[in-house]
């Protein structure tokens, strides 16, 4: 029976009418392994043909991918910026050091006397005196204004005494009282707790972090829409193909597959390009930043995108690609009726 059924498609002797084996049309030919292989072949074909289609229209592809890469690199750039700033505040967290900026007319000897005095204070753990010359040298070294400072006749910097209070003075009120007492010294022009700066910096950081999250959400949405629109155009260009496939019994998931892979490739390549952009920008920034970090006694090293960050970046952009094309396909394929 089965042999006869197969034969009708071949040329040759007429075969007597047989009942058509409808199971053939329900279950794809061959055994499970064959089906599995066929499925794998379909995916492999969709994977490579969609890449081939991107390469076939390089101009459009490059434009789309550039736009996406810039959007994604903005997002990851902000992420890495926040990460770096966080590292900065992280290292400053523990210091509740107080800086005393002395008045201009206080002499060096007077200042060191004052420093000795402060050392005797039971609430003080250590005292460090930074002379005008030391301050100037440090400033000259790191600020990049060396030549400009040489042009000045007088050293404009004050003498600074850095006081580290005892650890027992952790609470805010104790620190505040100590600060008040320092402020009352006639030699002190201005006393300031570095911790206040840390706190301010931390709240700025919190705002920056929130801003980065919101910005990344917006950029992610933009990526989603750009990819969705690209896929919509591709679907439009290949409308005939889609309609014919539908007419010969293609399911929506069969039709979607190559477009989802297109979305994946666009996202993936944009992600890799964005990583490249961010890394190049970071390399450009590294030297000036590390020079700047000298001002913080070298505690700061520029963080690059780590291996995990890079994987996450590429994974997220690939997924945005798939999601962007999927969201368009679900809607468009329902609209697309064979004529």
């Amino acid at each position, binding site marked *: 029976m089965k042999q006869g059924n197969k034969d*009708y*498609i071949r040329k040759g002797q007429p075969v007597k009418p047989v009942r058509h084996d*409808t199971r*053939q049309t329900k279950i794809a030919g061959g055994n499970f392994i064959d089906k599995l292989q066929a499925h794998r072949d*379909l995916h492999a074909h969709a994977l490579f043909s969609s890449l081939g289609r991107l390469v076939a229209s390089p101009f459009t592809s490059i434009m789309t991918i550039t736009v996406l890469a810039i959007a994604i690199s903005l997002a990851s750039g902000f992420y890495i910026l926040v990460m770096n700033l966080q590292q900065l505040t992280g290292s400053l967290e523990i210091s509740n050091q107080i800086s005393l900026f002395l008045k201009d007319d206080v002499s060096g000897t007077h200042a060191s006397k004052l420093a000795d005095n402060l050392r005797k204070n039971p609430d003080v753990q250590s005292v460090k005196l930074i002379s005008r010359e030391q301050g100037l040298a440090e400033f000259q070294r790191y600020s990049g204004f060396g030549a400009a400072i040489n042009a000045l006749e007088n050293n404009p910097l004050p003498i600074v005494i850095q006081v580290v209070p005892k650890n027992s003075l952790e609470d805010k009120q104790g620190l505040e009282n100590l600060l008040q007492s320092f402020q009352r010294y006639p030699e002190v022009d201005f006393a300031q707790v570095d911790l206040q700066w840390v706190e301010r910096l931390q709240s700025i950081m919190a705002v920056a972090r929130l801003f980065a999250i919101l910005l990344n959400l917006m950029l992610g949405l933009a990526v989603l829409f750009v990819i969705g629109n690209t896929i919509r155009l591709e679907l439009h260009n290949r409308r*005939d193909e889609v309609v014919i496939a539908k007419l010969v019994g293609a399911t929506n998931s069969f039709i979607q597959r190559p477009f989802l892979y297109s979305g994946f490739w666009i996202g993936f390549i944009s992600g890799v390009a964005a990583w490249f952009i961010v890394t190049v920008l970071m390399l450009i920034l590294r030297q000036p930043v590390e020079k700047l970090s000298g001002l913080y006694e070298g505690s700061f090293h520029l963080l690059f995108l780590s291996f995990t960050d890079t994987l996450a970046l590429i994974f997220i952009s690939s997924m945005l690609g798939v999601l962007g094309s999927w969201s368009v396909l679900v809607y468009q394929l329902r609209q697309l009726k064979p004529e």
Partner: protein
Amino acid sequence: MLKFDNVTKRYPDTGDVLRNISFHLRRGEIAFLTGHSGAGKSTLLKLIAAMERCSRGQILLDGQNLSQAKEKQLPFIRRKMGVIYQDYKLLQDRTVFDNVALPLVIAGYGHHEIARRVRAALDKVSLSGKEKKYPQALSGGEQQRVGIARAVVNKPPIIIADEPTGNLDPELSTEIMLLFGEFQQVGVTVLIASHDISLITQLNHRVLKLDHGQLVSS
């Protein structure tokens, strides 16, 4: 195999295009669907191919009710029929082989099975050796035969042809009709929409005649 039971198709702006159509095509039966243009031939074919749904009545294809089929089932219903179009509906940027293979690829056959069946189908329509050609490099008659090969490659129990000889000369038309006769002989149901009167009378098959949306003879 194919049963229409009081089928009416109404479009909101043109009214009833088909009215109370009833007929039954048995397994292995061949029939012509004829009628003046605008009589509702293409609408009837669209109903069978599940491109449109009927407004009233029932269409049974191989025991399955098309009017009640869910959207998700339609692809699998379409795999049970081979449809041949007047304008061939071939993919111009794919080879003859790929065009014919499409239904098999969609149905998830392995590539050995696909190659074997495509070759057999092309052999059947006398197009062996043209696998690697593109449709544009073929004549109208050859393109039509590629369309036929694609329609039969999946061994569907029913074949529906919409004006399959519309663009062909009489000699080629007869050849293609003989081909349909061969499919019928192995138990395939064939429905051919045509207004080629000479061809229809020459072949002496069953004729379903539509007139203004009604079946006037069957």
